[in-house]
């Protein structure tokens, strides 16, 4: 099953998610996810979004050891009143 996708990166000590018209950063992943769920729920986004980590954010020398960091699905609870 495919879900709308956000691209996740980590730069300058902050997580960053881009896509679906959003560009959000936070020092903690959990904080970033909270921001995303809030913003997406307000926009009436689908109940699930796929977060794909862009492995090019890892240092070049490291990628030869393992080219995949993480993918996961974030559940979006509908905003109150929707």
């Amino acid at each position, binding site marked *: 099953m495919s879900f709308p*996708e956000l691209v996740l990166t980590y730069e300058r000590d902050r997580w960053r998610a881009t896509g679906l018209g959003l560009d959000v950063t936070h020092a903690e992943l959990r904080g970033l996810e909270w921001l995303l769920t809030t913003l997406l729920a307000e926009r009436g986004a689908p109940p699930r979004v796929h977060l794909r980590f862009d492995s090019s954010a890892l240092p070049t020398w490291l990628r030869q050891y393992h080219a995949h960091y993480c993918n*996961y699905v974030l559940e979006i609870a509908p905003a109150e009143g929707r």
Partner: protein
Amino acid sequence: MSVNRRWTSGMLATEDWWSVWIGLALYAASLASLAGADLVGWMPRPRTWEWTDLTQAFAWSKLFAPAGAAYVAWHPLASWLTAYVVLTALLAIGARCQRVDVGRFVAGFSVLYALTWVAWLAGNELHLTTVDATVDGRNRYREAALSWGLKLGEGAPYLLALGVGLIIGNFAKGLAARLAEAAKPEWFIKTAIVFLGVNLGAQMIQASGFAVQLLVTGAAATFVAYLLFWPIVYTLARRVFRLKRDVSAVLASGISVCGASAAIATGGAIRAKPVIPVAVSMVVVIFAMLELIVLPGAYTALFPDQPVVNGAALGMTVKTDGADAAAGALLDDLMRAAHVAATGEQWQPGWILSASILTKLWIDVFIGVWAFVLALVWVYKVEKRAGAVSISPMEIWFRFPKFVLGYFVACLSYLAIAAAWPAQAAALASGTGVVAGPVRTLLFMLTFVAMGTITDFSKLRGMGKLALLYALALVFVIAPIAYGVAYLFHRGLMPPLGN
């Protein structure tokens, strides 16, 4: 759309898959020998040479010559250049698909290729290699009337290659930075491991019991790495070193399982900040280099009568595929040289290396499953976020080391061809012998140089706690338990005799 939702994703974009494509392409080309065509015999094979003899009457053919009989009339430099063009072209295509800067890659690879050959040829000088022993009625040390010799056997080129790489990585950092785009030891070694599948196939024909023993030890090694090493190191990190949960988990995987790849897989699975696996991987890479420098020589000196035990123990102890395979190759050559010097018996090459590789591959294969289990534990138990975050089991496949597929495809297809056409055994051996021989050795040599180039020991500064924990776990947990398990399964097992 996510590229990671299809099982085929990454097939043209990762170095892991490209090791399979390049490895199998050259292997397939070598099979043309079954139809009487030699498509890989242009590969040069170094020869042992002696300094005085060469300087008195120089000839390139004394240093190296084409490996295939069909190319015997070629000038050695023509075969050297052909090998350079073919390998550079194949790797450059892979690099382009991986979105690497092809210009920088080709420039860097050309330097690495030249340095590798200098080390390879220099390392075949008789004073470095030849052992003072009579084998099959010949004593080459005496025949050459050598007044001295290091007697390192075929391990001498590897040691020189490592030395060249380490000098660049630690004393010529500007050059190391310029070579960084091409210094990919994991890519080189994974491609070489695909060729080693041919060796495993040949070994299974010769002694199927040996392969079965290695498989059983591999299963035990997997159990030990994931269910014994990991909990011990994790507990040490949490209770003694007071490290945070995510750092402890990433470090435990890096130290216990399969090095940098396990650290990254675990970091991703528990969604740790990427700086954690990056820091852990730096420590892993440097310690893997130290293990590569120390362990083959130490095992050769301490346990000269346990060749296969030593190989399997390396597979459990040395992290990163590059360092493990490199250490296995070095151990293979050092132990065979020591054995022939002590007894006059010549062990067949490759059996100790196979023990090292197969044990490690077993551990590698399950990293995807382990990462998936950790991901579930983190979501359900540690972060208690069931219902907010979900992980697909497809992540197991995305983390699976694909070069292992190439290794077994080469092994099983070799076995199938040998079984189907037994009359073609000589033709099969002559073609595949080139890719499993000099082509594979060249990739090992490139791995040694590239590993040295990317190893900067000064990066250990500021890694005090991580480095100390790694050292303690390695010396007091990983190495002794690994050796004990390997001894339990392989004690007394010897490689067959012959060249």
